């Protein structure tokens, strides 16, 4: 996993609540057995005017020029600014894969759906929860910025800095922060506790033998 330490990146605003994972990456693209290549289909139904198909050359498709990712101002954006309950719905990890493949490394929102939030950390994406009022300030700053807004996100300091010097701090769970900072393989870490798992399993089997029956 790619580590996340600090990022200075252009903000793309998606001012809308309850953006679900079907919207982030529609189901027809979930047929892939790979982890990469989802970027061209990120927000497919918002971004293009036609119905997207897997393995299609997206550069030939009619685009929705109203959608922000199609506007010159937001090219190469790496920070997504979103509304409440971002990532609700399906558990598909294809959603963070598509965001990452497109180039987003950080998502800022007033709240996230639990499974999506969790999936971000497994893919080197930092989801930041800020109070609605602070998110609104960033939305406004983005609108006011002539050539787009660049934010600096410092995970070590847990701090977001706006170009005018305004700073917002954010909370994040220590374990997840360390994994992101170091780009750690969580499975490897867990397997360091293999003896504890084996010990637990033996006690568990003694207490609940029916859970270990062969079928």
């Amino acid at each position, binding site marked *: 996993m790619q580590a996340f330490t600090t990022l200075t990146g252009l903000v793309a605003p998606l001012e809308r609540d309850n953006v679900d994972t079907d919207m982030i990456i529609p189901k027809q693209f979930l*047929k892939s057995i790979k982890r990469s290549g989802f970027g061209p289909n990120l927000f497919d139904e918002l971004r293009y005017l036609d119905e997207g198909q897997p393995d299609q050359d997206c550069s030939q498709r009619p685009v929705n020029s109203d959608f922000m990712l199609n506007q010159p101002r937001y090219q190469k954006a790496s920070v997504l600014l979103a509304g409440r309950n971002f990532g609700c719905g399906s558990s598909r990890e294809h959603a963070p894969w598509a965001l990452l493949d497109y180039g987003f490394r950080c998502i800022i929102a007033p709240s996230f759906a*639990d499974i999506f939030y969790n999936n971000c950390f497994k893919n080197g994406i930092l989801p930041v929860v800020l109070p609605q009022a602070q998110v609104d300030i960033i939305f406004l700053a983005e609108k006011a910025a002539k050539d787009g807004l660049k934010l600096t996100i410092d995970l070590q300091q847990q701090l977001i800095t706006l170009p005018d010097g305004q700073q917002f701090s954010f909370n994040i769970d220590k374990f997840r922060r360390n994994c992101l900072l170091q780009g750690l393989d969580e499975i490897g870490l867990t397997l360091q506790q293999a003896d504890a798992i084996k010990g637990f*399993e033996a006690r568990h089997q003694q207490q609940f033998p029916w859970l270990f029956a062969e079928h």
Partner: protein
Amino acid sequence: MAGKTLYDKLWDSHVVSARDDGSALLYIDRHLLHEVTSPQAFEGLRIAGRQPWRLDANLATPDHNVPTTSKEREHGIAGIADPISQIQVKTLDDNCQHFGINEFSMKDQRQGIVHVVGPEQGATLPGMTVVCGDSHTSTHGAFAALAHGIGTSEVEHVLATQCLVTKKMKNMQVRVEGALPNGVTAKDVVLAIIGKIGTAGGTGYAVEFAGESIRSLSMEGRMTVCNMAIEAGARAGMIAVDETTIRYLQGRPFAPQGEQWEQAVAYWRTLVSDSDAVFDDVVTLQSADIQPQVTWGTSPEMVASVTSQVPDPEQEADPARREGIHRALQYMGLKPGMAISDIKLDRVFIGSCTNARIEDLRAAAEVVKGKHVAATIKQALVVPGSGLVKTQAEQEGLHQIFMDAGMEWREPGCSMCLAMNADKLGVGEHCASTSNRNFEGRQGFGGRTHLVSPAMAAAAAIAGHFVDIRQWH
């Protein structure tokens, strides 16, 4: 010290080790797999040279991509017309074979939607932790199990370590008091709950459903309720063990037998929240206030009773919500103030992990028996949740009732709930659907989904528009 909630008990009995930041390594008893969210996890194992930690904890079945016409199904995987879907289903078979995981493949009579298959096999048992790379894993909480969806990285983590790194959620109790009125089903109850607390109301919580209405539900009904906990933002929903739970499990293929059955039942009876347990939040609904529900928008919280009207965004004070309603009505092609019963339908879908169990099919069949689908309905699909549900329905003659009514009787799978196979809506089409999500494009590009109970969907198929099932003759 206060007593423990059901969730506290399930959590405590699975902690391998706790970290000082509140997260823990949690042991997983049952891991269910399907073709969409597992290929990248198996690939990860291969690349790292790892083996599954405990093979017998895993059970797999293909469901999302499988075609549902008998013509395609006759040929097994080779009969899948879409080559990309074919590769994905084949990859699940290959991976299960390579690693030695028990799979009910396409040709197996036990194949079906993973959340229908687990419980009907008795592979989901009270007191278990159950995970699957699918958000509707909350379904299994109906058995007093701690069950929730995970992403693909976690699928790989569970395969490799039999554990999950996770943080304890908060406790919420949702009580539905009073007996359920006639014509009001489990689906209406859960849609009413989502309407009340909102699509993010349960975020960060494990929700226990309780109260007389919940207790009166069959296991099928309880699964419908827990299935949609995630639509209220709660990863896990659950219901305490009672006689209904135990009766359902007895004799199921994966359930314990003999002496172990007695031992298990004695333990299972303890899987209830203590009377002095404290919940972080309690929400109460009165069953008498719940009417048959229909969603009118693009989020499950956008729901109303069948006797009411489509809301007017101008009446909404919160600007973000107003904008949300406005956008939803535009997508749905509905006008503020129009009667829900005036919404005309193009297709009807009876199926999905929410409502494709035998009881759901019986309820729908009872409504359509001796009647015929309205001429304006292009298609009414009935898709059983598993091969075993299909067989049982056919033994009861339900398939004949559906076909006589002009409905299509299909092979088991997820089908039009998420339209990964050929079953989908066309642009602008309205569908009365017994599934769980009415998101934009969910059932097909430009499709318009209205979530309802099986009986309401069946009645809508006959009438061509929504009707109050309580007035049905």
